[in-house]
């Protein structure tokens, strides 16, 4: 299966920003720590100063100390040196800890923003992006940014300051020997920029490959039973081999470029060194050993900072590539929440007027010019073949998706005018796919309002949902942790908890989307009683296949192919002898 090529569903907007632009976007986050940052920069420069001074010390050491045999100087020298190294040590420790602090905070901030964005993202975003991929953004990609921010800053500032110091030292001591610098500097800069452009593209490829690896692993873990049952182990293993090898190859390409940059630059410098030696070999220039040694050592010392600068550039590029992806995610739209109306409790009059809707990823209309009303407190049942549009109606009422045509209103107000928070507080939803969280049963029942309900209220809701008995059978009762997505519970038990969850909130509007599909007849009957009781005084939208569930509804809508085929009460529809009658009969027909 060609899983890697499912690019259609990956909604990464890859705008072509330069590294610099991305870094500029990162700046506001960095600037929050202005003070600490400035202090760190001072320490970095101090460190570079210490290093430069140590080298510059060679000249007086050799010329005065040795050649002129100045004993006093030689005795003082150790103290100078010790002092400089102490300064260096303190500065190094200081800036590395401070910058760790800053980068840790920045990465944490980005992670939190990303998480927050994913929380606020519209449901359609999740239709188009696998959770595995999104997960690797939060974990792997932000980590890449961590690697780059403080290391990069340290190297760039410290090594640049060091290089400047060395340049100064060289020219100060002997300008003639230092001439070669003027030639090699532009050459080195050109080489570095050429390499970094190529590097960035490769870094992005590698990131995407990683996402594919994560996705493959996730798929395998989620579909494990299917793999076992259908004996597809070989196929899955082969597919993973392909995906993981691609990642390996992409990383190797990256390495070949980055490993190249350092040696090339160093060879260029070696020519400069050779030039210095040749110049020094000119007997006309009177070069003291001290001058020579300083210039020579400075040149040699240049190799290290340049090496650091080129290799940090690699890390920096990688980090910025990751950063850019993250920023482009953050720039994508979140759920539209432009409404400002806040109501305590709506009455519950629902009106759909000429509503049409199309899912982004499909071509056909899921709903075609649908209109119906549900007066407050009444129960409407939606029936029809699977895929006919019933769940879509529920999705639109909760504004999981935005409609393209028409209007949906509650109490005469367009639902877009309510704040999302307020709107969703009015609606209770129990669907066929129950998702529970890895937390206690009590916290799952009270999810979203943990702390706002008492233990009695929670237990009462559980009783009404016919879940109390089985919960009490667990060792820890309501404090039992349910495992990832409630894996430790049976299908029926999970659904009853989901029903308790909805019951607890006492919403004026209730949507039951196949809420009892996983239950046996007996449990369904008991809950039905509770649901019937609950539905009194509430506006309910019930979607079910079991006609016995919906016969008592105030109105029944027969949905087919995105339109309403018939509507009326059970008796009315039976008299019509149309689609509803056909469905009804087939429930009992042999």
């Amino acid at each position: 299966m060609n899983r890697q090529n499912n690019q259609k569903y990956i909604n990464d907007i890859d705008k072509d920003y330069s590294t610099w632009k991305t870094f500029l976007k990162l700046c506001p986050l960095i600037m929050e720590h202005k003070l600490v940052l400035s202090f760190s920069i001072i320490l970095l420069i101090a460190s570079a100063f210490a290093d430069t001074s140590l080298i510059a010390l060679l000249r007086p050491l050799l010329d005065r100390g040795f050649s002129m045999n100045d004993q006093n100087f030689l005795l003082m020298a150790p103290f100078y040196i010790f002092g400089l190294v102490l300064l260096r040590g303190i500065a190094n420790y200081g800036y590395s800890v401070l910058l760790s602090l800053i980068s840790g905070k920045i990465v944490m901030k980005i992670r939190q923003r990303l998480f927050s964005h994913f929380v606020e993202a519209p449901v359609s975003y999740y239709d188009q992006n696998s959770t595995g991929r999104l997960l690797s953004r939060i974990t792997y990609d932000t980590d890449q940014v961590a690697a780059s921010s403080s290391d990069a800053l340290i190297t760039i500032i410290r090594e640049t300051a060091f290089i400047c110091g060395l340049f100064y030292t060289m020219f100060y001591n002997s300008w003639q020997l230092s001439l070669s610098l003027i030639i090699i500097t532009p050459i080195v800069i050109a080489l570095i920029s050429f390499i970094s452009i190529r590097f960035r593209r490769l870094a992005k490829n590698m990131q995407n490959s990683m996402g594919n690896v994560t996705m493959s692993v996730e798929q395998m873990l989620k579909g494990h039973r299917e793999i076992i049952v259908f004996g597809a182990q070989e196929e899955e293993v082969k597919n993973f081999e392909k995906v993981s090898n691609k990642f390996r190859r992409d990383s190797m390409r990256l390495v070949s470029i980055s490993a190249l940059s350092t040696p090339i630059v160093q060879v260029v410098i070696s020519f400069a060194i050779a030039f210095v030696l040749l110049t020094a070999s000119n007997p006309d220039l009177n070069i003291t050993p001290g001058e020579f040694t300083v210039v020579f050592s400075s040149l040699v010392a240049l190799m290290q900072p340049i090496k650091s600068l080129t290799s940090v550039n690699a890390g920096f590029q990688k980090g910025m590539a990751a950063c850019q992806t993250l920023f482009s995610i953050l720039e994508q739209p979140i759920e539209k929440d432009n409404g400002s109306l806040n109501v305590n409790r709506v009455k519950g009059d629902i009106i759909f007027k000429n509503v049409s809707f199309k899912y982004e990823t499909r071509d056909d209309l899921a709903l075609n010019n649908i209109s119906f009303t549900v007066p407050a407190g009444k129960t409407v049942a939606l029936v029809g073949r699977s895929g006919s549009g019933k769940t879509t109606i529920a999705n639109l009422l909760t504004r999981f998706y935005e409609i393209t045509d028409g209007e949906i209103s509650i109490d005469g107000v367009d639902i877009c005018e309510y704040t999302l928070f307020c709107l969703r507080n009015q609606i209770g939803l129990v669907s066929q796919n129950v998702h529970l969280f890895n937390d206690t049963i009590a916290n799952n029942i009270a999810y979203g309002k943990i702390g706002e309900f008492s233990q009695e209220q929670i237990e009462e809701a559980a009783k009404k949902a016919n879940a109390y008995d089985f919960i009490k059978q667990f060792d820890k009762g309501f404090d039992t942790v349910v495992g990832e997505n409630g894996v430790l519970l049976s299908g029926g038990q999970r659904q009853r908890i989901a029903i308790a969850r909805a019951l607890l909130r006492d919403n004026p509007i209730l949507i039951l989307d196949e809420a009892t599909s996983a239950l046996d007849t007996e449990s369904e009957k008991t809950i039905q009683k509770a649901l019937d009781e609950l539905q009194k005084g509430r506006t309910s939208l019930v979607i079910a296949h079991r006609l016995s569930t919906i016969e008592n509804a105030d109105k029944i809508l027969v949905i087919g192919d995105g339109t309403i085929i018939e509507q009326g009460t059970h008796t009315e529809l039976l008299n019509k002898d149309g689609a509803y009658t056909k469905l009804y009969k087939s429930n009992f027909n042999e």
Partner: protein
Amino acid sequence: MPQKLNSITTLKKLWPFIKPFKKALFVAVFGLLLNAATDATLISLTKPLLDNGLMDKNYSLLILIAITIVGLILLRGLSNYISTYCLSWLSGKVVTKFRQMIFHHLIKSPISFHDKQSIGDLVSVITFNTQMLSKASSDALIILIREITYAVGLCIVMLYGSWKLASVLIILVPLIIFIAQFIAKKFRHTIASMQAGMGQITVASDEMLKGHKEVLIFNAKEYEKRNFNIITDKVRSGMLKIEIVSRLSTPLIQLIATTGLGFILYLVASQNLDITPGSFTVVFSAMVAVMRPLRELTSLHVELQKGAVACESLFELLNSPLEHDNGTIVVDRVKGNIEFKNVTYTYPTRNTPALNNFCLKIDAGQTIALVGRSGAGKSTIASLLPRFYDISKGEILIDSINIQQYTLKSLRKQIGYVSQNVHLFNGTIAENIAYGEKELHSEDDILRAAKQANAIEFINKLEHGINTEIGDNGILLSGGQRQRIAIARVLLRDNPILIFDEATSALDNESEKLIQKALEVLQKNRTSIIIAHRLSTIEKADRILVIDDGKVIEDGNHEALIKLNGIYAQMHKMQFNS
């Protein structure tokens, strides 16, 4: 998590993985050695440069040295590139192999293992931990080979330059190494907690991503964000603590080294030793140069730790038990006689047995239906037959042979299993229907299966028909459509035993009726076990078993059970009573 981690022993376990790439390793090591040697040689050149070249004004020597320097740096660059490339290649291969092995292992792990694991955690181990292992072990190797050789080379250069001065170092070096080890010991535990921290973030994110709709509808956005902020902050401050301690080692070591240097200078000054500028510069430069390898050596411990911890977590996974596949019997097609003999089974995560001394005999070709309250044991029966879980008490037999005696592959080929939780894969509808047996079926076969599952008419409405991509777990299809594809998937394979566990729960009555008709045809000459809540679907079964608390309460066909007026009769009345 193991308390005392001996890094070396743990990393030794890596050797079998590295062995196939021995050659690359040797080339890399050779490159590193060469690199270190050229570096040391370059420094040693300072002495002849200053003493013979400059002081004695031997200019031709200077030119010779110039050429040598360029040559050495070229050599250095070359060796650096080769060693880096080889090491990266090697670690890339090892890590990829690890990833594939773990993947393979996880596929073969029993379902009980998967029930206990969080998917996010496992994903994190396969992606993050392997990455960390790769980085830590290659960094460790570089330090071990190159930096140690370099340090040794520099010592030789120093001794050669002036043995009197260099002898001071011999005292200093052990002292420095001792301090380095001491500091490394101080944060042995924190590396593991850093990984655990990342795992926490992964799990928290994963939960929210998967339960996103719930987050929206229950207005839990702020709650989730707050929770995440707390977790990430904890992880951040934990990592910072590591940094604060670990960074102390470098400056400490450098100060000690400097003291040595100062002492030398003092000696030179006070003792009036006869040292040439060249000798002095060499020793001085070598001493400054040796700071870097010494600093790297202190982080050697840390890298080894990181590597060992990552390694350990990976091996823990690899050592977890696989599905028991000790059977040897391979059969083409069983007849389909099933027998459960005194089977008692308790799920590892629960306290009470799901099946208690359960007995059942099914003849080949029979269709039996299991009904009962949810949690009564029906799905357990369905799960034990394909050996999703293994029983220890009692026996399950197919064609009079214990199912544990068949090979797993052979056993599962006999059973077609559809449950209410359908998982589809990212691919086309055709690929999903033919999942696992792509090459064995023609497109006609696939279309036929789709027709039997009553899926063909919605498939034909799609733009690319049977070749339409369905998205992550078929997210773009409705529940009923996914279920029909799952049914088609099984129908395609023509298994002698069929298990349908609420396989039609998401379907509307019409679809169900149509599939029912198709199934009735197929169920002839097949042993079928059907679990359903909708009693209308099972009335035609040869036998209906009412299960409660892991035991068979009633057994008979529809008419017999209605006459019995027991539990089944009650259930039937409830369902059809309005």
